[in-house]
Each structure stands twice: as structure tokens, then as C-alpha cells.
């Protein structure tokens, strides 16, 4: 501690800017990690809170995926002697036209028995309204709202709340206001309770419930009752504790969490190189100081401890600052992530506040600290090995910067071979990550050699540009590769990440465009919700015939989709008339016989699996999959594998006749409408709205509007990728600024000598500028080249773990070209400050430096 105060602190104070730039890498890495995870956790926490608060004293919940089940299941559950109370529930997120309110979570319950599970603590209104289900049930427009919702909207008992229901916009009457806290704080307070049977009608559920909440009798074991119910109801039902819903949400949003992890890991990894670079140079600069300490009796261990201690302090402070910045990022992102997850996965949650997890915070600080210490380990070791006699000889340290050796190149070669071997083996998803990590390691080992090569290539160009300054700048790079290799590595990794993300984005868009063109080709889509991923509302099957009767419509295909758990993952089921679908949208298979697979599926003898389902769940053509349905397990072979972007977790396409039979559900989520030749989509849309809008809630979207919607969702999703790209570029910029600051400080004496022997200020400036441009150019060339490889490995990871999609390899030339001026401009701008500090600094001090 004393050594840190006496030795380290004066050095840090003298080079504060450099030190801050070094710490910035850690700040950024930790901030991204904390920010993205906290935003994600806040949404997840809000979801869990909603689940918990709504669950009340519920011990078990019975559901059948998203499909719901027949009412008679309730009788079977209530008949079990160990069940104390079992009540039906319908949950739906609906829009209200109240200003600035957005969505409200409607909880449909049976008030007769529900009070045994949930506490409807009324703030105002006649307690008898809730106590007396008669009034509540007799008036299906009855609504109990929360105190917060009532206050925000100036509502009182008897006030009307307009809501968009299956029967169009309806006005509901507030008959009770719940006190704040508990149930009333679920879904950020935007919660309303209504009668479950009225909810069935309002949300087009038919005679079905979404789930059953239950509590067991005193003395009965919850686990035992769960097992009994699971046996009684069969495999099509899930009997779980309420907390399991939170886990499902977590599982669905897995890809988002993984993305956050990758970004922050990359940011920290790159930050590590900045720290390594700084410490490496600090060790070189402080050789004399180290020599004196060693001569005075300091042990090697003490020297190493000084540097590691400095890095620990830097890591700790950087991590703490990163925590603050991360929380600010989370505040800005939570609402966005909530709506994004809602739109992409169809699970709405209203997250208004951020929730900070102490464990996450501690982990982030530890991560920053460890990264910093690990980064400083090699420089610290090298400091400890300094020979006191050599160190005290002025000028000696500049000869120690070479360091390329054959062993490193050999190691890089071995790692590269291993990386490709891992990439070619498809058996385990972890190999895809291993391949990438090995490739990164190989690239890093080769960085000094390659940087030197590129710098040599650049030397004639720099000399051609400015004979004196250009030569000096190039020689500076060639003579001290160790000084710049860390920054070049950081820049290379950042740019490689940008290239990989850019390539992935471009390939994803191209694939989605193709899918939209081939599979989503109806002229109109009739949906009960503005959002195609929202599945709360459904149409009756009979509406299909009514639609078909409208002049100008040639064909109508009803589609029912729902999230159902298969092979441990909540995937999307798409049920439609497959024979009709294939006539209009013949999606070419990834695997399977194109004729036979559609015939088998249309006949209800097989299903089609999406490519991402097959890859993520290890399913192959011909594999029999067990699909849980309320009527028992449905075992069907996979007749074909097709590209489908319906869901990130994967999708299964089956014939709707099969779905109707096994789920006893003939409702429809969306009608695909094909127009007769010559019919105008605008005119037919008008006719549909004219015919139905007075009777029911519906939206008619043209093909163009659906494409826009999907692309908007894709844009929102890739918004996170753009954040990643921005972080990567920012870290790269930090690397350049850091390197230049270090480089200039390191060369103050050399540049001072130049000035002393007659070098003009402008010449010094240009030397620094050209060196900066050269570092930028070296990083760019290596980054864009390594990016090409990184894209290949990223595509492997996306295919084998993240999304299960085989995307085409397309090098993002546009992004790469755009990076050229950006990085060179950043390099140049970064050089302005250091260049000025050199030319305006005291010549005497510069000559005395060391």
C-alpha cells in the first residue's frame, strides 16, 4: 500500500490522461455488461414480479403451452381431494385508448373462489362489489383497476375505461380500485381484473381457459399433488410452480442474454489489450525507477506486486465507474428491451424501473478487476525480471522492443489449424465457440509479425507522402512494434467484430427478404392484433368463410400459432391448411423430398420443422418428435426441414386439422388472404373493414405492411447489434487514442532531440499525424482481414448455438469501406492533441525526459 502511494501514485498523477484512457477500456466493458444485463434483468424481474404478484398464494399452475384448454379440465382438477382450491385464469394484454397508457394486463378470474388465492384489497368502491361476485359477474363490463392506474387516468368508481376487445372497442366500468402494493403492483400497476367468463368472450377464447391456479390442502405435499395432476392430465399439460413461468421467459429471451454476454466479453477482452499495452509501456518507461528500487533492495515479488496493485486499483476504479455508467445505460434501455422482447417473443411486460442485482454488480466488478490484473500480469512479470544494472543505463530500454519469434508463429499456426478443425466438427455447439476463441488467439499471436509486415509495406507510401516525416513515422512503428502491437490488436479485434456483425446482419436481412418473398406472399393479412406476435386475441374459424364471401378474395387460409414446449424449449407451432399453403407458397426444403413432405404433412402424418429448430434441438429428417397436446402425446416424424423465421427458438408446421383434433381448438390467429386476379388490395381491405369492423376487433394489413412490420422488428433486434458495433468502434478509438498518447509520451525525448536539431514544429506535428494514420491503417488492414475469418466463425456460432440458422457468407464490403475514412479520421483526430502537446511542450523537459 505504501509502495503504491509512494511509487505508483506520483506516476499516475503525472500521466493522468493516459491512465484514464487505460481505465476507459474497463469502464466500457463493465458498463456494457452491467447495462445490457441489468436492462434484461429488469424486464425479467418485472415479469417475475408480475407472475409472483398475480400468483398470490398459488402453489401450482396448470397450463398447456399458450393454447389453453377446455373448461372441463377445471372439474377434473377440482375433483382431486388434495386440491384445496383451483381457479381458472385468463390473461391478456390489451390496448386501451386512454392517453399514454399503452397496454393493460387483464386478469380474468372467477371471483367466486379466486379470493382464496388472491387478495383484492380495495382502496375505494363498495367492498361488496368484489365480495359479491353476483354484481361483478352479472355485469360483464365490470373492471377492478389498481390505485396507480386510477390516479394516472383520473378514474373513480363508475368511470369508463375504453379497451380494444375482440368485439371492437368497448367501454368497461370501474367497479373497484385496488390498493397499491401486492397484486396491484403487477405489470407496473397497469393491471385490471375482470370476470373470467366475460374475458373468454372479450378475447375470443371460446370455452377455454389459459391456465388453472391452485393451492393444495393443508397437510398435502405440493410435489405429490403436482405429480398426481401431471398423471391425471397427461403430457399435454404443464403442472408447475408459478416461478416456472419466469424461467420460461428467461429461456425465450436466452438469445438476447447471450448477445449481451458476447458484446461485453468482447469489450472487456479488447479493454484488456489496452491495459496490457499501457502497462507494457509503463514498465519500459519506468525501468530506471524499477532499477533504483531493485538496487535499494526491493524484491522481484515487490516489483511485481506494485504493478499488479496498480492494475487492480485501475480495474477496481474502472469497474466502479463502469457500474455507474452501466446503470445509466440500463435506465435508458429497459423500456426499449421490454418492448423489444414483447414484440419479438409475444410476451409483453411493462418494465418501468430498473432492478439492480448485487450478485451481478459484484460479478461485474470482479470481472473488471480480474481483466485488469490479467492484462497487467505479463508486463508486471517483465518488470520483476528487470536487471538493475541495465535498467539504470539511460536509453537502453529503447533497444528492448523487438520480440517476434518463431515459436509464436508456430503456436499461431497450430492454433489456427485447431480452430478450423473445431469449426469443421459439428457435433458439439461448444466447438463453434472454441473455434472462434482459437482463431482469436492465433490472430493475436500473429499480430506483431503481421503488424510489422504491414508497417514495412506502408513505409514507402508514407515516405512518398512526406519523405522526412513519413520515414520517421514508419520507422517508429518498425522499431517499437511492442509499443503499438497491443493497440493494433485491440483495433484489429474491434474491426473484426464490426465486420463479423456487419456480415451477420447483412446475411440475416438477405435471408429474411428471401423468406418474406417466398413464404409470406398473401396479399392481405387479417389479424385481431396490430402485432403479429401477440396471441391474446383470436378469431372464430367461421370468420374464414365470411371473408371468402367478400368480392375480390380468391382464397383464405386460417393460421393458428402458439408457443408449446417441445424438447425442453418453448417453440412456435404454426397450424394451417398445408395443402392450400403449398399451392401458394412452395418453400423449398433445406432437407426432405419437396413433394412427399408436403403431402405427408397435409395428411396429418408428419410435421415440417424449421431449420433453426432442427439445428438447435438436434432434430434430423425422419426423427419422430413428441408433441404434448391436451389429448396426450402426438408423435409425428419430421417429413421436411424448411427455412422459417417465425421464431428464434424454432417452429413446427402442422396441418390445422391435426391441431383442431388434438387441441380441440378451431380458433385462428391470422387469416392469410389471396386476392382474385385484378382485385385491388386497398379496395378489398376497405370491404373487409366495412364488413367486420363494427362487430369485432380486426386489422387488415397489406403484404407491404407486414413486410415493413417484420423488417421493423428485425431492425429493432439488430438495434442491439448496432450497439455492439458502436461499442466495438468506441473501444477501437480508445485504443488508438491510448496508443498515441503513450507513444508520444514515450517518444518525448526522441521528438525533443528532433526539435533541438532543427526540426520544425509542423514537421513534428506531421510525424505524429502520419504515425497515427499508419497505426490506423495497420489496424484497419489486419482488422478487415481478420474480420473475414471472424465472420466465418460467427456464422458457425449462429448456426450451431445462437439461432440455428445457416446464413450465407457475405463479406460486408460497404461497412468495410465505411470504416476506412472513419478509422483514419479518428486516428488523425486522436493525434491532434498529443502532437500539439509535443510541439508546445518545453524542449528542455523533453530532452530531460526519462
Amino acid at each position, binding site marked *: 500500500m505504501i509502495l503504491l502511494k509512494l511509487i505508483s501514485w506520483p506516476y499516475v498523477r503525472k500521466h493522468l490522461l493516459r491512465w484514464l484512457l487505460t481505465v476507459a477500456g474497463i469502464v466500457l466493458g463493465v458498463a456494457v455488461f452491467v447495462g445490457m444485463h441489468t436492462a434484461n434483468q429488469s424486464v425479467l424481474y418485472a415479469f417475475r414480479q408480475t407472475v409472483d404478484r398475480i400468483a398470490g398464494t398459488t402453489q401450482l399452475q396448470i397450463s398447456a403451452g399458450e393454447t389453453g384448454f377446455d373448461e372441463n379440465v*377445471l*372439474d377434473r382438477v*377440482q375433483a382431486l381431494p388434495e*386440491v*384445496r*382450491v*383451483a381457479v381458472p385464469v385468463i390473461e391478456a394484454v390489451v390496448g386501451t385508448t386512454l392517453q399514454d397508457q399503452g397496454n393493460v394486463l387483464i386478469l380474468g378470474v*372467477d371471483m*367466486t*373462489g379466486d*379470493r*382464496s388465492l388472491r387478495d383484492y384489497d380495495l382502496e375505494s368502491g*363498495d*367492498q*361488496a362489489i368484489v*365480495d*359479491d*361476485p*353476483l*354484481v361483478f*359477474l*352479472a*355485469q*360483464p363490463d365490470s373492471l377492478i383497476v389498481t390505485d396507480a392506474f386510477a390516479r394516472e387516468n383520473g378514474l373513480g368508481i363508475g368511470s369508463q375505461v375504453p379497451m380494444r376487445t375482440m368485439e371492437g372497442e368497448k367501454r368497461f366500468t370501474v367497479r373497484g380500485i385496488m390498493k397499491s402494493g401486492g397484486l396491484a403492483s403487477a405489470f407496473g400497476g397497469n393491471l385490471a381484473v375482470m*370476470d373470467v*367468463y*366475460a374475458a*373468454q*368472450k372479450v378475447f375470443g377464447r371460446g370455452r377455454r381457459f389459459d391456465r388453472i391456479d391452485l393451492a393444495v390442502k393443508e397437510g398435502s405435499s405440493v410435489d405429490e399433488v403436482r405429480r398426481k395432476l401431471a398423471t391425471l392430465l397427461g403430457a399435454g399439460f404443464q403442472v408447475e410452480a408459478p416461478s416456472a413461468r419466469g424461467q420460461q421467459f428467461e429461456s425465450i429471451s436466452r438469445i438476447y442474454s447471450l448477445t449481451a454476454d458476447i458484446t461485453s466479453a468482447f469489450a472487456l477482452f479488447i479493454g484488456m489489450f489496452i491495459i496490457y499495452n499501457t502497462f507494457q509501456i509503463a514498465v519500459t518507461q519506468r525501468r530506471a525507477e524499477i532499477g533504483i528500487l531493485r538496487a535499494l533492495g526491493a524484491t522481484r515479488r515487490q516489483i511485481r506486486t506494485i504493478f499488479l496493485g496498480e492494475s487492480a486499483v485501475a480495474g477496481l476504479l474502472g469497474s466502479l465507474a463502469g457500474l455507474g455508467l452501466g446503470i445509466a445505460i440500463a435506465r435508458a434501455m429497459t423500456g426499449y428491451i421490454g418492448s423489444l422482447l414483447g414484440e419479438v417473443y409475444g410476451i409483453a411486460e411493462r418494465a418501468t424501473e430498473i432492478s439492480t442485482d448485487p450478485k451481478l454488480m459484484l460479478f461485474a466488478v470482479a470481472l473488471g478487476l480480474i481483466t485488469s490484473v490479467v492484462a497487467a500480469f505479463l508486463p508486471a512479470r517483465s518488470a520483476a525480471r528487470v536487471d538493475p544494472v541495465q535498467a539504470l543505463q539511460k536509453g537502453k530500454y529503447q533497444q528492448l522492443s523487438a520480440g517476434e519469434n518463431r515459436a509464436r508463429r508456430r503456436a499461431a499456426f497450430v492454433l489456427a489449424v485447431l480452430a478450423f478443425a473445431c469449426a469443421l466438427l459439428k457435433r458439439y455447439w461448444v466447438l463453434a465457440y472454441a473455434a472462434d476463441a482459437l482463431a482469436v488467439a492465433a490472430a493475436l499471436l500473429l499480430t506483431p509479425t503481421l503488424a510489422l509486415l504491414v508497417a514495412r509495406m506502408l513505409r514507402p507510401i508514407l515516405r512518398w507522402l512526406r519523405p522526412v516525416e513519413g520515414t520517421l513515422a514508419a520507422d517508429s512503428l518498425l522499431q517499437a512494434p511492442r509499443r503499438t502491437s497491443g493497440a493494433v490488436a485491440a483495433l484489429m479485434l474491434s474491426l473484426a467484430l464490426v465486420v463479423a456483425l456487419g456480415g451477420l446482419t447483412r446475411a440475416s436481412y438477405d435471408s429474411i427478404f428471401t423468406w418474406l418473398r417466398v413464404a409470406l406472399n398473401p396479399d392481405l393479412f387479417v389479424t385481431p392484433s396490430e402485432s403479429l406476435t401477440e396471441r391474446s386475441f383470436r378469431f372464430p374459424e367461421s370468420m374464414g368463410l365470411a371473408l371468402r364471401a367478400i368480392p375480390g378474395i380468391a382464397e383464405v387460409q386460417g393460421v393458428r400459432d402458439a408457443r408449446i414446449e417441445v424438447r425442453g424449449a418453448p417453440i412456435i407451432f404454426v397450424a394451417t391448411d398445408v395443402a392450400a399453403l403449398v399451392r401458394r407458397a412452395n418453400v423449398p426444403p433445406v432437407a426432405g423430398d419437396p413433394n412427399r413432405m408436403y403431402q405427408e404433412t397435409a395428411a396429418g402424418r408428419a410435421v415440417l420443422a424449421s431449420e433453426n429448430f432442427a439445428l438447435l434441438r438436434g432434430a434430423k429428417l425422419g426423427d419422430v418428435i413428441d408433441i404434448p397436446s391436451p389429448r396426450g402425446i402426438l408423435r409425428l416424424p419430421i417429413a421436411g426441414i424448411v427455412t422459417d423465421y417465425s421464431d428464434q427458438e424454432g417452429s413446427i408446421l402442422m396441418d390445422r386439422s391435426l391441431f383442431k383434433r388434438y387441441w380441440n381448438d378451431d380458433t385462428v390467429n391470422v387469416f392469410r388472404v389471396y386476392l382474385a386476379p385484378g382485385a385491388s388490395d386497398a379496395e378489398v381491405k376497405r370491404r373487409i373493414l366495412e364488413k367486420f369492423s363494427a362487430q369485432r376487433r380486426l386489422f387488415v394489413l397489406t403484404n407491404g405492411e407486414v413486410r415493413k412490420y417484420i423488417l421493423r422488428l428485425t431492425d429493432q433486434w439488430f438495434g442491439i447489434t448496432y450497439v455492439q458495433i458502436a461499442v466495438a468502434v468506441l473501444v477501437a478509438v480508445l485504443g488508438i487514442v491510448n496508443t498515441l498518447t503513450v507513444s508520444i509520451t514515450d517518444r518525448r525525448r526522441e521528438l525533443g532531440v528532433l526539435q533541438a536539431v532543427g526540426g520544425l514544429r509542423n514537421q513534428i506535428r506531421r510525424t505524429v499525424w502520419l504515425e497515427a494514420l499508419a497505426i490506423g491503417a495497420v489496424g484497419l488492414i489486419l482488422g478487415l482481414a481478420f474480420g473475414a475469418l471472424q465472420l466465418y466463425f460467427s456464422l458457425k456460432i449462429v448456426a450451431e448455438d445462437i439461432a440455428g440458422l445457416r446464413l450465407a457468407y457475405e463479406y460486408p464490403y460497404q461497412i468495410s469501406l465505411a470504416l476506412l475514412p472513419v478509422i483514419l479520421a479518428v486516428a488523425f483526430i486522436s493525434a491532434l492533441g498529443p502532437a500539439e502537446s509535443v510541439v508546445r511542450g518545453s524542449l528542455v523537459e523533453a530532452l530531460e525526459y526519462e
Partner: protein
Amino acid sequence: MNKRVRIPGLWLCLASVAVAQDARQIVAESQARSRSKSQQYEGTLEVTGASNKISLKRWTYQRLGSYGASKAILRFTAPPEVKGVALLIVNHPDRASDQWMWTPAIERDRRIALQDRSTRFFGTDFSFEDLEERDVNQFDYKLAGEDAIDGAACWKIESKPKESKSSQYTSSLLWIRKDNYVAVQIENYNKEKLIRRLHYADIEKVDGIWTPRSIEVYDPGRQSHTILKLEKLQYNLPLKEDDFTLEALRRG
């Protein structure tokens, strides 16, 4: 023989001549004296909450059959917001009753679950269980002494549900008048805590059956009470079986 006893508004007329020494016999006799083929009345419910807020409801009540296998339909007629809501109760000799409710505004019937029998009956101080017929054989009785209620001499009888009987109450105290075998007061307990007190008044002889025309239920927990008044009471009318089905419930 499966003997059942009706509690709140349905624990009605008892004759007064028989003499019984045994507690169980007294209860059985009380039940036998209230037996009828059918019953019909118009009821008025007055619920007074803790804050002395009074709410009124009216219904028509029809019952076909007697203890053990009776069916009853109750239709609310007032206030306007509950008009048309109906309840069908089908009693069984060997198990708990089935109950369905009809909501005209959404044209839906719904089953009232057994588990909900301890909940309050539509905002009154009665519970759904209080509406059920009680099988005499499902309880143990003990004479707890003699007492006077409203000036009339009564047997005070303690009843406890047998193990096989599921009830929210662990014990009840019944006061049965000695002169006409009409139950005039029932106190229902859970352990030592009084849950409900039912008081029967305005006892008149209707169609030869002694019947209380006013039943007051007091809930000490909520500090509220409900008074049910029976008007236009008639016994042994020729009611049709078809009017006591789910279809009839839906017809309104």
C-alpha cells in the same frame, strides 16, 4: 334412511307435538315436520355492511322435491344490475349438491365448485354451504342443555360433523323450540371462533308447516348482517321437473 336437515332460509317448518329426548331424534323430527313436495317464495335480501351501508336484492325461489333429492332454482329480480342471474341447485342424497349459475349478459352458465362452498353467497352473510341440505347422519349430536330464545323454550343441541363430512365449521349449536320443533337459532363455529349466527323469526304456519318468515345471519368477523324475508310463500305446488334443468336455467 337418509335424513337431511335444511339450514338458513331453507330450515323451515317444524311441528310442535312430538316429544323427543334424544338430540339426534329431535333434529330428525324437526326435519320431518318441515317436509314438503315443493316450495315457492319471493325473497328479499337486505345486507347491512360494517359501515351500515344497506344493499337490497330480490329473488324468486322454487324448489321441487324434498330432502335428499330436491332441485331448486333461484332467480334474482332486483336490483336491475343482477336481474336475470339465476342459480340452479341439484341436491343429491349421497354427495354434495351441484350448483350452476346463469349470467344472462354473457349468456353463460358456470358451475359453482365444491371448494367454493365456504365463500360468501353473492355478497350476503350466508355461505354457499349454508344453502346446502344437511344429512342428519353426517353429524354427531349432543344435548347441550335448555335455553329460551325470543321467550320460547328450546333444546340446545351441539352438532359436530363426522370425519367423512367436509365442512368449514367444526361445530354448531342449534336451538330447537320445544313447542313446534322449529330451529330458531344456529351458531356455527370454527374451533372456538363464532363464524356465523343464524336467527329465525316471524314463525308462521303456512300450508300446515311451521315456517320462519325472517332469517337473520350475522357475521361477527365482518360485523355485517343479512336479513332474508320470505314473501308469497307456498308449499306443495305442482311444479314441473323440466323447469329444474340446465336448459331451463338458460331459458330464464
